[in-house]
């Protein structure tokens, strides 16, 4: 089963670029839609299986093993959710045939890469598929071919190459010090030669490489440009899935299963997390561009995931996983809102949003749901996940970080209120004409808003059936 999650995108990719493509030109959208829906359903109702590919004779460290456990299930759901939103948005927004073909191709590669990253069990293959995802993302960002996009894409490329350097050096050091690159071999090697400086350097290099990929402060420089310059479907995919799976999920996976919770790692994660939470929120306050604001907000929100992970407690890790999921839902919602506002105002400038609620009531009201969830207002889902993170920090007697997490919530409130004030309290603007809002986008917004509300209302159920088992299976 696990293999199909990688193989099906690959087959679709081949079909899309083979001679058959002229016959089923318009079917790819449907094909991908069905695949992602299946993935979502499979992750919710499916079982956990594993699959072995490749052979051991080539090299002992070149194994290709896929495994699904309760953490990957949640991340696969996140990928399919962000993928579905991005795909539908692209279908609506990208009208011409060729750009859409390009988008679908690259989108499929990104999905393939992320699915593989989610299920892999060794650091080298992890690196390979991180790069697969990253390369497709470079091109996706540059797809519009204007100056901003190319610059953002190039910036991502440069920062990503630094990450590549760090990751590869880390892998090399792991091969030197451990018996292989599989997770089992590395954790065995760490238990065996844990005090060796090389393994510590490898650990630091690999972690920092992943932090660059996940765009945490001070490794974040590529994030705002990439999110803001990319087209809306790509922004959704980047914020909702790519950054998180390629960076944050890998950190979650490695810390929980391979490196273990040592005080040094916990403190590193907590420090970087707190820096991102506060710095991201402060930077978001200063922005005038809607999508750039959302980009900084993403940095701040993902900081909470690091904080939850860094607490090392079951409650904190459950909160981190829940926030990982919630962030995808409400950030996708806000990016869809940005897309629908852009259809009317023609830009992402927040100043131009004044009084937009009078002409676009649906987008405005659903943006409130995103704001409530993001700022942590009950009963929306974001409240519960932040609460769990803070409780976890408190339980781990990291009271200082818990206080930072709470106070940063005020800053979050600040930048979101700044946005909502412009949307709702700008007075009637004469610039907008009452033209029809795209129905698909409205449905997308309403679905996501309801989803974030329902996740909040049925939080005890989700916690009991998804988050706590996931956290419990990971922690000793």
């Amino acid at each position: 089963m696990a293999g199909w999650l990688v193989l099906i995108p690959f087959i679709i990719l081949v079909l899309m670029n083979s001679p058959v493509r002229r016959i089923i030109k318009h079917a790819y959208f449907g094909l991908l839609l069905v695949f992602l829906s299946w993935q979502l359903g499979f992750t919710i109702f499916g079982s956990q299986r594993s699959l072995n590919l490749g052979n051991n004779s080539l090299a002992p460290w070149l194994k290709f093993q896929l495994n699904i456990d309760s953490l990957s299930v949640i991340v696969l759901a996140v990928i399919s959710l962000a993928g579905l939103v991005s795909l539908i948005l692209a279908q609506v927004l990208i009208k011409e045939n060729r750009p859409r073909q390009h988008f679908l191709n690259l989108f499929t590669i990104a999905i393939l890469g992320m699915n593989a990253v989610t299920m892999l069990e060794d650091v080298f293959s992890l690196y390979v598929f991180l790069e697969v995802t990253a390369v497709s993302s470079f091109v996706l960002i540059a797809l519009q071919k204007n100056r901003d996009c190319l610059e953002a894409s190039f910036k991502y490329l440069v920062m990503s190459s630094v990450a590549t350097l760090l990751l590869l050096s880390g892998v090399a050091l792991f091969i030197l010090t451990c018996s292989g690159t599989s997770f089992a071999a590395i954790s065995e090697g760490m238990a065996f030669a844990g005090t060796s400086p090389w393994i510590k350097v490898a650990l630091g290099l690999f972690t920092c490489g992943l932090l660059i990929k996940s765009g945490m402060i001070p490794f974040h420089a590529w994030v705002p440009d990439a999110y803001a310059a990319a087209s809306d479907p790509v922004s959704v995919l980047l914020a909702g899935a790519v950054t998180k799976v390629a960076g944050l999920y890998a950190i979650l996976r490695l810390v929980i299963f391979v490196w273990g919770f040592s005080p040094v790692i916990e403190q590193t994660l907590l420090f970087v997390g707190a820096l991102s939470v506060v710095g991201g929120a402060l930077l978001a306050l200063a922005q005038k561009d809607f999508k750039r604001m959302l980009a900084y907000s993403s940095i701040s929100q993902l900081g909470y995931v690091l904080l939850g992970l860094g607490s090392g407690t079951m409650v904190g890790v459950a909160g981190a996983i829940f926030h990982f999921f919630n962030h995808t839902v409400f950030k996708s919602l806000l990016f869809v809102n940005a897309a629908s506002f852009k259809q009317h105002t023609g830009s992402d400038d927040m100043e131009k949003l004044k009084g937009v609620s009078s002409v676009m009531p649906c987008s405005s009201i659903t943006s409130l749901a995103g704001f409530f969830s993001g700022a942590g207002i009950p009963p929306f889902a974001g409240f519960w996940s932040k609460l769990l993170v803070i409780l976890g920090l408190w339980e781990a007697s990291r009271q200082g970080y818990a206080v930072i997490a709470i106070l940063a919530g005020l800053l979050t409130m600040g930048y979101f209120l700044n946005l909502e004030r412009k949307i709702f309290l700008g007075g009637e603007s004469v610039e907008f004409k009452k033209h029809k809002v795209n129905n698909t986008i409205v449905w997308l917004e309403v679905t996501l808003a309801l989803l974030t509300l329902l996740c909040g209302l049925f939080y005890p159920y989700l916690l009991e059936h998804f988050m706590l088992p996931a956290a419990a299976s990971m922690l000793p």
Partner: protein
Amino acid sequence: MIPGIFFIIACLLHFGLALFIFTHPVSLSFPLGVFGWELGFRVGGLSASVFLAAAVFLMILGVYTAIFMRGKKNSVLFLSSIIFSALCVDGVFLAANLLTLLFFWEALLIPLWLMIASRGSLAFKTATKALIIVGVGDFCLMAGAALLWAQGYTLWFSAPPIMVNNTATSVAFILLFLGALSKAGALPFHSWIPDAADDAPLPFMALFPAVMEKLLGIYFLALICLEIFAQPLPSWLGLLMMLTGGITIIFAVLLALVQKDYKKLLSYHAISQVGYMVLGIGTGLPGGIIGGLFHMINNALYKSGLFLTSGSVERQAGTTDLARLGGLFSRMPITAVCFIITAVSISGVWPFNGFFSKELIYAAAFKRGAIFYIMAILGSFFTAASFLKLGHAAYWGKITPVNKQIKEAPFMMLMPTVVIALFCIAGGIFHQNIEVYITKIIPFLNHTPIIHNEAVGEISGNILVMMTLIILGGAIINHVFAFRMTGSSLKAAEHINQAPFLVSFYRRAENKELDPYEFAKVGMGIFLRWASAIEARIENFYEGWAPTLINSASAALSRMHSGNYAWYILWAVGGTISVIIFMLR
């Protein structure tokens, strides 16, 4: 009209359900999940009887209310608030532990505010005053319950009674007692009731200060005296309760005497009568307790009856100002007869119900000390005097030409009034049965089979009855004499107004110097000035340097994002190096 019909149907259904619950006692509990707290309900004993009585009153007064409110402003809001309040009242009576009781008790504040405020924007001030005064009392109750819980006592009523023998339990008792007083409207929680008489819709006065609040407050007083805490209470607590009762009687009745408005006069009596109940229960004697509870029911009957007559007069004559009324007996005979029956009941004339409950309280008070007896009997004198004045001014005397057009109230409003008047007579006739019933439902009294004759007879009931008759006669003589002297029924109490000592009392009352709410407002003003000084500093933080700090921090951070790749890479590399150094450390 349609909301009114629905309301009457709801009241009838409510009564049916109450009867069903009364005859099918059960107990239920729902865990709340924290601290082992539970919502618990029980049916039985005193609580079930009071619960049924409340349902009966709601049904009778509901018919009147629906007719009275027809076509009035916000009538739907008012009627639905009554339904909401019925839920809370039932919850209080059916509660099996202090926590459940507290929950419904506090919830009652919401419909209370809504019912008064539904009259319009002018009533907001009064509604808020009522909310604050009752809220303070409720807070006392909550604090008392919290204190008991903190002392390790279970909050269930079925638990063995608590001995009041140390500071904590005494303080808890006093706090719970204050809670009961505030709901019953006794001193010092009384001052919103006269204001509400001016501003609230009349059915509210008949239903709440007259009936439900007395039932709730006195039921809770009986509950803390008989079930939560163990009798005998320390003598100083009994003394405190009796003094509160006595002072409430005298204070409120003196103010009632000089009122010149039908409803306002009644509202002061609603305060004064609570004094008798608190006094009776405060004696701690079986006779006093029976008398207090009997008086609770009697008071609910005649006071609601009196308010209903005032409502009928208001609706038909358009005013309740006594100076503009007069001679209504010939125009509204049935209402007038109902008024006479309820007025003689409240004055304690044989053989109406008020006589028997008051005699029980007199006897018990006399046993505890002559001073309490004198307070109670003086209260009766002034009560009789004020009702002679009221009846004389409203129903006798010369009728003004305008008032000649007045017709009798509609049948649907007369019927509840008549039913209540009949209940008053029945209460007098069957007083023996009621006293025996009260003895049966209260476990504390089960072992002391005292009935009316014994309780009164000990000190020779005849002397006390003689005293009562002398006092009532004195009130009549006083009224006739004063009427002859002044020539006006309204001024019949003027000489009391001008009496030495009382002059300054009335002047202060006029200036609202005796209203604890006004004291509190002055205290609040001082507190507010103090708080606003702190507020200014907090505001300085929120509007001054906190935003400045945040804005400058975010501006500085944004400036660092200059688009220079070298810097960006330097940050990442610097970060990596720091992490590695930290890990190697």
